[in-house]
């Protein structure tokens, strides 16, 4: 766990950006990972709860999700696409779901996060405080830099979706999961459990994946799973 030596609760995005610019500052979104991340370095937390970033609103064919919207509020919202709702529910159990946030999930970019995979196939773009709009896959590839503050995530709504997963138990974090969505232009597929972050995949690119193996599944097994599950998702979408 980090050594937490300071706490700030800015009231404006400008103040938050200023505070995050200092040394050893970490944004506190929901807090569900802060207790098991970090190497014992002293850090000061910048709590985002008072920035008014928890709103969810439909905007034409897209939905804007505030960075501090909780996973529970995603699961409960009827403007959020169903795949994202169920992925938000799947990522955390009841007692952590009202704390964890969409911005925190993107920031943490856990390679096993179904929510992040679901956001990927919903063409998510991430809006930062400095007004950059970056496709989620780019954010995941570059990772966040010191001082970055996510203010919202925008996703495309609509389109048939499908999900397939293999896990030790029905609600366990999947060993590998694949989600898919038929968009206006193409079918997007994303997988988790096959790399350090969830990633967009195509049938043709599956062979290039290089999944990490662990006690839940070796690399070879994960490669097998991603192929089987991708075929199932495509079968369901066709």
């Amino acid at each position: 766990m980090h050594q937490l030596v300071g706490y700030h609760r800015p009231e404006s995005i400008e103040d938050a950006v200023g505070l995050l610019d200092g040394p050893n500052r970490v944004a506190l979104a929901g807090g569900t990972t802060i207790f098991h991340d970090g190497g014992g370095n002293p850090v000061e937390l910048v709590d985002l709860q008072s920035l008014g970033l928890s709103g969810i609103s439909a905007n034409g064919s897209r939905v804007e999700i505030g960075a501090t919207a909780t996973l529970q509020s995603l699961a409960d919202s009827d403007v959020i696409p169903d795949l994202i709702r169920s992925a938000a529910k799947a990522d955390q159990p009841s007692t952590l779901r009202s704390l964890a946030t969409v911005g925190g999930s993107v920031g943490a970019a856990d390679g096993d996060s179904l929510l992040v995979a679901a956001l990927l196939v919903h063409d998510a773009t991430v809006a930062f405080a400095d007004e950059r709009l970056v496709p989620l896959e780019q954010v995941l590839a570059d990772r966040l830099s010191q001082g970055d503050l996510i203010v919202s995530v925008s996703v495309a709504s609509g389109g048939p979706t499908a999900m397939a997963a293999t896990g030790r138990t029905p609600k366990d974090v999947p060993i590998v999961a694949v989600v898919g969505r038929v968009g206006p232009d193409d079918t997007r597929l994303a997988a988790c459990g096959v790399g350090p972050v969830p990633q967009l995949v195509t049938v043709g690119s599956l062979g290039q994946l290089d999944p990490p193996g662990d006690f839940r599944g070796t690399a070879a097994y994960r490669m097998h799973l991603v192929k089987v599950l991708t075929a199932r998702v495509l079968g369901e979408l066709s």
Partner: protein
Amino acid sequence: MTTITIELNGESTTAEAEPHESLFRVLRRLGMFSVKYGSATGETGAAAVLLDGALVSSEVVLALQADGHRVTTVESLNTESGLHPIQAAFAMTGALQSGYSAGAMVLGTMALLERNPVPSEDDIRDMLSGILDRETGYVKPVEAVLRAAAVMRGDSVEPFGPLIVPTMTDGTNPATIDPNDGGPTASPAVPRVVPSIDVPEMAVVGKGEVKVDALKLVKGNPAFTDDIELRGMLYAKVLHSPHAYARIVSIDDAAALALPGVHAVLHHGNTPRVKYASGGQSWPNPHPYDQVSFDDTVRHVGDRVAAVAAESIELAEEAVRLIDVTYEVLPAVFDELEAIKPGAPVIHSEADTDEIYDRDRNIVHRFEAERGDVEAAFVAGPNVFEGTFRVHQVQPVPIEPHISIAWLDSDERMIVRTATQVPFHTRRMLAPLIGMEIKNIRVIKPRIGGGFGAKQEMLIEDIVAHLAIATRRPVRLELTREEEFWASRTRHPQTITFRSAVDDDGTLIAQHMRVVGNTGAYGTHGYTVQAVSGLRGLTSYNAPNKRFDCDVAYTNIPIPGAYRGYGAPQAEFALESHMEDIAHALGRDPLEFKRQNWVKLGDEMNMAPHIGERATDGTVELDEYPRVMSSGIEECVAQGQRSIGWHRRLDAAWRQPADRPHIRRGLGFAFCMHGSGIPFLDMGGCSIKINDDGSFNMLVGATDLGTGADTVLGQIAAEVLGVRLEDIIVYSSDTDVTPFDTGAYASSTTYISGTAAKMAAEVVRKRIKERAAEMLGVEEPCTLELHDRSIWAPDGRSVTMEELALHTLHWEDQEQIMGTASFMSPDCPPPFAAQFVEIEVDTQTGQVEVIKMTMAVDCGVAINPITASGQVEGGMVQALGYAHCEEYAYDDEGRMLNDRLGPYKIYRADEMPQTEVFLVQTLEDSGPFGAKAVAEIPKDGVAPAIRNAIINATGVAINNLPFTPERVWSALQSAEV
């Protein structure tokens, strides 16, 4: 420090908090004792509270984050002496076992019902998904929420109680099952009680009484070890070994001691070297004594190096970091078969550990027992079969971790308030380690948040006691969840080989079981767990020739010890798998083949006297062997077959659903048999006295861990004394106050301590009758009867219990009517059970999904069908974890990779298979009111039943646990299914 203001249970409340402190910590400081520690990372949900109305784990909310917000704990409901309808529903349905997470569940229910007054079962299970429960299998908590919702809507609600299910057999012969008969329909939480004509109707016994501790648990009243405040208390932390095997070259504690607020640092350099074995077992404890409080050698990652006492947890942690240790790292060995090979690292080379069987080969124990002549039978036997099985390492995972607080009282006696299953053993074992006499030690067991064997151990009591002596202040030590994984106790991994010889007609002629058990760094429980494996592995089936061979190996894994089921789940997995394989090889129906050979009423249990702590020579034939005196197995099988739809196992269309081409379905069965206590060893004591109002104080040494033992013992006494359960005030397990009991283990409490309770109540009843006879002018006291809180003469006249109490305490020939008794049993009547499961296998991924588990148990007379069925439900779910998803994963250096809940996966509420529990009544004459044990048998059958169901589904037999997707997929690949 920062001052925060929260609206706590409706009142504006200020508190001081550091930036790193969790809301959990601050709430405990504010006296909100219902909020319980489960892990620093929030996965258990034991510390869940409502934050602005939403259920959140307060361990992962910073106190400063909560500043300005509304916080609700279960204490908000406790403004009156009665119970809120939600609390009442949890109490009535038996949804509380230890009740450690009761506050979280009640709050979650409150929040859910506020949002949704008509929740579906899925809604309820989702609400409970973040509150891990190791005790109930979630069956009764779900029922509690459904009933609370109905009550709060104003709907009428039937009282909760058992469903009486008609018998299907004559008690001896198999039943013919009608495939169209689906059996009883009722909520899965309702225990299905199959009555027996042998069992008379009783007033309190056999009734689903509300647990005697329900009120304090459901209100979150301070009742657990940590729920006291002691002035000047210090916090302890342990420095654990980072190496699997190393010698400590030097320890420098100067920097740690120099830290202001650090009061003591203990290690091998300043602590006496007193040898002991930490397993909580009867004197003189199975040898060798291979442990000391702090050693100069560490033998597993997580082994003790040093301990610190400081004025805060943070200071203690900082001091631990400042201890400078130089290690000489040694080669380590983890696998039991590798460890006993010549040339393996020798793990206990120290000169002062005696009675290691073969030190150079790491074999701490070897034992053997034989009946008949097994080798001759194998030579002669027409059909010989062999199978080898590997069972893995898992953890009991009580949601309350180990916690102990020690202090010197005004007489300077050592008081230890501790989460233990074995207070009396702990007192005795602690004495030599801390250099005090037993009479100067008092061990108090308050409410315990689950134990399951992990607390059948003197695990940390010596540390807090040493530190309390060194500092002369109270000292508290609580393990973190991570420490619980690598520094408490686990189930023994084993490699098991069965060999059987079978006649052409399917009769077993010989059975040979060889076990290599892995006892890790120390031998605690190593002898007895493996002995139970032999006993259980070689008692279920009749064969004239039987042999048990066992080596128990030291390795460098975190220490196996006691875990509910002891060595039985390992043995019965191997046995029920092996028997299944023989049946398939012989072309026999597995259940029929097992039935042909399993022990029946009147059969000898011919290995029992030869294996275990009090075994007689394993090769000498005795004149007499214990026999099965009660068995309801055929009724169990029939009820289970009907419940699971057993006929479908042969239905190809069902097994291969046409619309789901990669799915195969299967059904599996396992025959289960356990014991009731340890004969000639376990002993329980009880004393009872009458009070002015005709109530009774009952003091028992038995150790309720959440099992409902206090309730069951109270019911037994109430039945004898003709009063209600509420008239019995039960106090358990305080070594200064209550009689002795060996402790809560070996499925002994109902049978052993229950008989003691019955006998003590009978002593009191005898005297009550004598005094009542005088009051009523009746000549023969034995003609009086006790019922309905009165003593009745044959002519219908009566005195009330209160009148009798006042008369005898205050009026005439004053005396305290009281009685004491203790009980040790020469018998160990086996409970029997039929375990059935339905599963689906995904043949493309190897994923196994368990759809339904049915267990029908013959536990004799269920003293309390609600708590008994709760034991079965919770036990089956632990067994499901063992079979399906729980395992210790290590790196090459012996460091655990998954020391968090989540990566170490235990089942949660929203992913549970259906469960159905039948309690098949039989009358066991040797037990109290006909009772046998029920606590451990639910651990025995799930793993083999799932394995056998995988065979039914795919034809593939897997001999290693657990059935995780990749393991199953690999097996299917090898078999090309």
